[in-house]
């Protein structure tokens, strides 16, 4: 059993992990967006607040600016000291000169021009004109510290931590979930493969057993048939001698009839032994190069006669490759298969004779043979639309003397003989069948390389 290492496997991201990661990313993005938005809102609010204070100062300090009253201006400006955000506040007169102001940790620009030039990082300057009847009489300048980076970060650090934790929890959970489900999938896959392999093994064992059985039966029956054949030949020879001895005396006497009957019985016995020998692959064969399509074509009429009018015959002869086999035996086999097909279709049906050129790397599924040789094969299939057979019968179909026909109708040697012949010729036999749908018997004969 080959177990692929888990680490070497391509990591497959389950939709759940992707979803969880996306959720975490969205959460983080939302957090960042929220923080940025809050930040901008805060800045805008700060600027707005400072501007409002500047506007209030500008409105109240008008008279003091107009009359250049430094003391009064200073009083107005000093009122803003309570705001710790304000780094500096100043009131400039119409000429841009400083009238009053205060500054914390920074130097107060002595003129408006200087103030404008001094804008920098870390603070914002808000300037609001002091106007009277639409005319500008001065300028109020407020300088506010923008919040330092560290404080801003500190403000968001809690939120960031929470978001990160949330995202982490989601990520970890989904990862572990994915790992679990991956392991479960792996397990069930391995389990399925185990079952598959067990089943395969069972099938192989069965095929092997079947093959051994056939081999044993073949050897046994072949041995018997061989000896039997010799015995028959002796009896037949002696019968011939007896007939010669009787001469004309035998012509019109009961003795002649007895000899005739015995001879006929011996012929039948010889025929039987021939078939057994065929199954046990011990029959003498005279292989010739033959094209199965041509062969089948030549048999069309004979088949038509054999199967009767109820069965419609279709020839699909697409095979071009030749094979080496005993032509007579092959004709027998084809006829046999056609008759089997006819018997499977007592109410009539369709018989298809098909030849094909096939190149096989592994045996067809239905074929139980462990020593298949990959290569080119000339295939001949006999297909019927008959009653078909269940799996357990299909598996025993080539067993010698196994038949489903009523006693006396079949010998149980037809398919056995076919099987023996095909195997003896270096080919394979495959039987597919479905109850109620029909049966397909396919012979795979090795391609004769010398031929076309």
């Amino acid at each position, binding site marked *: 059993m080959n177990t692929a290492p888990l680490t070497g496997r391509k990591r497959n991201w389950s939709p759940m992990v992707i979803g969880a990661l996306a959720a975490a990313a969205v959460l983080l993005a939302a957090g960042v967006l929220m923080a940025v938005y809050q930040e901008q809102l805060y800045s805008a609010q700060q600027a707005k607040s400072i501007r409002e204070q500047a506007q209030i100062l500008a409105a*109240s300090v*008008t*008279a*003091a*600016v*107009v*009359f*250049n*009253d430094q003391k*009064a201006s200073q009083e107005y400006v000093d009122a803003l000291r309570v705001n710790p955000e304000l780094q500096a506040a100043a009131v400039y*007169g*119409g*000429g841009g*000169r400083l009238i009053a102001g205060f500054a914390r940790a920074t130097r107060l620009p002595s003129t408006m021009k200087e103030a404008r030039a001094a804008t920098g990082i870390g603070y914002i300057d808000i300037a609001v004109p002091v106007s*009277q*009847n639409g*005319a*500008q*009489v*001065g300028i109020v300048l407020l300088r506010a510290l923008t919040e330092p980076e560290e404080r801003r970060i500190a403000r968001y650090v809690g939120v960031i931590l929470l978001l990160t934790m949330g995202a982490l929890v989601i990520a970890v959970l989904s990862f572990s979930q994915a790992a679990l489900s991956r392991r479960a999938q792996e397990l069930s896959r391995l389990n399925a493969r185990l079952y598959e392999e067990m089943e395969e093994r069972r099938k192989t064992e069965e095929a092997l057993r079947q093959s051994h059985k056939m081999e044993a039966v073949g050897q046994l029956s072949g041995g018997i048939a061989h000896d039997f054949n010799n015995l028959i030949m002796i009896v037949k020879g002696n019968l011939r001698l007896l007939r010669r001895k009787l001469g004309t005396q035998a012509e019109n006497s009961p003795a002649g009839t007895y000899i005739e009957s015995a001879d006929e019985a011996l012929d039948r016995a010889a025929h039987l032994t021939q078939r057994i020998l065929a199954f046990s692959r011990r029959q003498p064969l005279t292989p010739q190069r033959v094209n199965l399509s041509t062969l089948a074509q030549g048999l069309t009429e004979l088949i038509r006669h054999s199967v009767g009018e109820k069965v419609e015959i279709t020839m699909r002869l697409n095979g071009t490759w030749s094979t080496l086999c005993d032509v007579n035996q092959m004709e027998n086999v084809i006829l046999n298969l056609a008759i089997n097909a006819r018997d499977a279709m007592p109410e009539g049906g369709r018989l298809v004779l098909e030849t094909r050129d096939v190149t096989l790397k592994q045996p067809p599924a239905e074929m139980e043979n462990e020593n298949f040789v990959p290569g080119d094969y000339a295939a001949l299939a006999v297909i019927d639309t008959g009653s078909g057979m269940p799996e357990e019968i299909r598996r025993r179909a080539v067993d010698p003397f196994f038949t489903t026909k009523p006693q006396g109708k079949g010998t149980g040697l037809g398919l056995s003989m076919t099987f023996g012949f095909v195997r003896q010729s270096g080919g394979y036999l495959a039987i597919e069948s479905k109850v109620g749908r029909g049966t397909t018997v396919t012979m795979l004969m090795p391609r004769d390389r010398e031929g076309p």
Partner: protein
Amino acid sequence: MTRGGLLLAVLLGLLPGSLNAAPSLEYAVKAAYLPKFIPFITWPDAAFAGAGAPFTICALGEDRFAGKLDLAAAGLRAGDHAVEVRHLAASDSSAGCQLIFLPAGGDPASIREILDAMRGKPIVTVTDSGLSAHGVISFVIENNHVRFDIDDALAAEDGLAISSKLLGLAHAVRMRSQP
């Protein structure tokens, strides 16, 4: 107004606290102040002869400002009214004046008389520093700086409204009685 402010700022900025040494500077400041009072005071409509009538600043007696008042008020507007300066002799009528400056140095009795005559009229009386009688606004000198007191009660009597901004700048204020 802007030009006046500029002038004032320059004057005060360059020569701080030396009014005694140059009396002309004292009057220059006062000349700059007089038009500046206008935006902070609201006159009733009845104070003007008509919509197009000018806003008249009247200066009684000899011209103490040596032309600086005319300069400070030149081109100014008070709302819809163009601001103009009129120099009055003692005998001249104060009709058409919205703001009248009563300089020191004259007869105190006649000043008091004029002030009494102005009572109840929508005219802002501005009395010079050193006078014992006081109008709505009276200049005072404090620490060599020109400042002013405001008699808001008197202004109320005259139907005038003075902005709290101006009141806030005043050296002293006599509050009007609360309604």
